[in-house]
């Protein structure tokens, strides 16, 4: 029925009344026409009221429709977001931190998840279960009942159970399983397990300064590889979006959308734990025997630049780094700068040969004094050796001879050679906090001349132990300087993904191959004559001792060091031993050389390097220095 029809129906009584009243009556003399007009007016008024009512209803409906459209269309996105915010939550999915292995796959750093026990004493008391909970926890954790009770039976609503050592109790897997079963059975009201991720260094303090550690707050790597490769090791956390109940717990039946976590990459280092251990143990004993303040040992593969061992004393235990002095956390092998002393003479003479300034047979008249910039320079033993060739300059470790070679090269060219060997710039090793060293060139001509001569024998120049090892690596590697590195490969996705191997990087040709060959022969020759202490039967050794005196006022305060490589003509390793301020004996040849020899012998055996020489010159008895080299190693 149409709207008009319904209105007519509604008006029917009025029409009927009008029709009935339109009939002529005798009620007061009014004609039926007047009545007709009156009723027509009433009808019009009714229709008007109906129209107003209709318009009002239509207006209200239109307003409702408009408002609905506003909320449903205009505010849809904002309202949906507000609704999602109320009942959807994003939960972070932790990405496991990658492990670190040595070159032979032995774990050096692993992240372990263990449970800790938390309890709410108020809840336990409210259900009157203190005795049973204490007894059960004591059994399940292995702690004495008295210790558990002392921690649980206290006022408050939160307790984290601590072990006998006072630290947070971290449960082994079996104990965790036991407590979890008890919790599922409802036997431990007011108790819960909270997982705690800890970084474990299974080998203790082995290679601590190379590895670094992971801080408790946020688990960021600090120092060493942990810091340098933080991005790779940490991985990418995932996220889980799901509806939650009023308490914020995820609803199992709700639709879920998740981004999986990507575990951190596993790193394999170039370090060999065995070589590292020998280096650390030997260095610790030598430091103790010589009364040194500390020291560094570096073992490097000259062909690739791979670092096989990087040991420092003092060191620290990354499992308990908070108890270690701040200074021990740094890696002095890459960050500490020192005067290399006579170790630099090999670099100076190699540069002189490469520059054509000298040859191995070039003669130098050693009067015991070399005047540079008006300042006399003396030999370490204050002696004069007369006419000597360049090999003898190395053999007798003549300051005068090396200073003279530097002056023959000239400041500008010598600086270029220093830069070519990597001095004055970072080596680019993949470890943090590396120092570039210090090379100062005074403006005054006299001072510059003195500085040049002093630089020639390793004074007045600041280098890091790693720079020295890398420079000797260049001499061993046909003059090619390799970039040192410690990360051999990266296995993405917690070891399950693609493996990226580090490719050795040749930085530059520091000196020509003939020059490198010449200096190797000279070092081999001088090594026999200089002390003979680090000679090994059957092997050709290219090595040089160094003793620098950082404090002119006290010449007994020294850096004693030895750098060299073996076998000299097919080197398997470069070995640097450096002692800081040894006291019982202060020279490189007496303080550092015994350890150098002991380690070199171990390495040659370990790498199964067959002897490359025969003859009397190779015969060397152990303990020539008065120390039994065997006792320097574990």
């Amino acid at each position, binding site marked *: 029925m149409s709207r008009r029809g319904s209105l007519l129906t509604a008006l029917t009584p009025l029409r009927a009344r009008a029709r009935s009243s339109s009939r002529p009556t005798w009620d007061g003399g009014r004609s039926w026409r007047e009545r007709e007009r009156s009723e027509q007016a009433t009808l019009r008024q009714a229709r008007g009221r109906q129209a107003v009512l209709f318009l009002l209803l239509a207006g209200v409906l239109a307003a409702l429709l408009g408002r609905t459209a506003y909320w449903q269309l205009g505010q849809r996105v904002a309202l949906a977001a507000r609704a999602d915010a109320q009942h959807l939550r994003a939960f972070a999915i932790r990405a496991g931190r990658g492990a670190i292995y040595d070159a032979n796959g032995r774990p050096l750093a692993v992240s*372990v*998840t263990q449970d800790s026990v938390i309890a709410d004493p108020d809840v336990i008391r409210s259900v009157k279960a203190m005795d049973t909970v204490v007894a059960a926890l004591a059994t399940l954790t292995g702690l004495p009942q008295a210790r558990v009770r002392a921690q649980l039976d206290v006022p408050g609503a939160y307790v984290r159970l601590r072990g006998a050592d006072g630290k947070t109790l971290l449960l082994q897997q079996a104990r965790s399983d036991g407590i979890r079963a008890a919790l599922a059975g409802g036997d431990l009201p007011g108790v819960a397990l909270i997982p705690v991720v800890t970084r474990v260094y299974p080998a*203790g303090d*082995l290679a601590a300064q190379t590895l670094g550690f992971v801080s408790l707050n946020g688990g960021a790597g600090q120092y060493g590889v942990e810091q340098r490769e933080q991005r790779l090791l940490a991985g990418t956390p995932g996220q889980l979006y799901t509806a939650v109940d009023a308490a914020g717990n995820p609803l199992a039946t709700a639709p879920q959308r998740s981004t999986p976590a990507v575990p951190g990459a596993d790193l394999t280092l170039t370090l060999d734990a065995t070589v590292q251990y020998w280096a650390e143990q030997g260095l610790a004993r030598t430091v103790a025997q010589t009364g040194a303040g500390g020291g560094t040992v570096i073992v490097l593969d000259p062909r690739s630049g791979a670092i096989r061992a990087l040991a420092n004393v003092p060191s620290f235990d990354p499992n308990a780094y908070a108890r270690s002095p701040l200074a021990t956390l740094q890696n002095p092998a890459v960050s500490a700068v020192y005067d290399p002393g006579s170790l630099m003479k090999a670099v100076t003479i190699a540069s002189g040969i490469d520059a054509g300034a000298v040859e191995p047979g070039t003669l130098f008249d050693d009067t015991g004094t070399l005047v540079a910039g008006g300042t006399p320079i003396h030999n370490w033993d204050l002696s004069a050796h007369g006419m000597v060739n360049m090999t003898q300059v190395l053999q007798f470790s003549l300051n005068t001879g090396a200073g003279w070679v530097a002056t023959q090269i000239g400041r500008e060219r010598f600086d270029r050679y220093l830069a070519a060997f990597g001095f004055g710039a970072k080596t680019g090793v993949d470890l943090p906090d590396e120092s570039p060293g210090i090379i100062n060139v005074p403006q005054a001509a006299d001072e510059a001349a003195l500085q040049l001569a002093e630089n020639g024998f390793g004074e007045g120049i600041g280098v890091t132990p790693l720079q020295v090892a890398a420079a000797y690596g260049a001499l061993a590697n046909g003059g090619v300087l390799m970039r040192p590195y410690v990360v051999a490969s990266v296995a993405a996705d917690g070891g399950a993904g693609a493996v990226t191997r580090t490719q050795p990087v040749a930085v530059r040709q520091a000196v020509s191959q003939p020059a490198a060959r010449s200096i190797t022969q000279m070092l081999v020759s001088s090594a026999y004559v200089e002390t003979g202490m680090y000679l090994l039967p059957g092997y050709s050794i290219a090595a040089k001792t160094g003793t620098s005196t950082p404090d002119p006022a006290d010449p007994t305060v020294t850096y004693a060091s030895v750098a060299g490589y073996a076998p000299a003509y097919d080197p398997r390793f470069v070995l640097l031993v450096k002692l800081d301020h040894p006291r019982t004996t202060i020279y490189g040849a007496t303080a550092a050389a015994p350890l150098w020899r002991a380690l070199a*012998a171990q390495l*040659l055996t370990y790498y*199964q390097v067959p002897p490359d020489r025969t003859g009397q010159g190779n015969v060397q008895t*152990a303990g020539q220095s008065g120390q039994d080299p065997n006792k320097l190693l574990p």
Partner: protein
Amino acid sequence: MDTPDPTLDSPDGPGDWRMRALAALRRPLALAIFGVAMIGLIALLYLHQVAALAAANDRLATLRAEQARLERQDADQRARLGAVTSPAYVDERARALGLVPAPLGSALIVSINQATLSALRDGGQP
């Protein structure tokens, strides 16, 4: 008077049951019963789906817990492996067993070619 529908009157006629069902559905009571039955069926299906989802979620949670437990175990084992293969541990255990380090130079390393090696392996003279 209306003429009776021959298909409705004939019990053997084609579409007889269908027509009767349609006719029955035109009655309010039958319609109500049918509606309730359909709603019940749909509710049953929904509950079944929810139960299946809950069971799957429970299974998923169990598997995730097992995965987490295995991952923990794996990490524990790797840490243990790292400890027992560390040179310090091996050194300590070796000394405890009475072993001592070999003196320097006690090992003689010789280089031999493949033919010599094969001859030695065969028990003959190189």
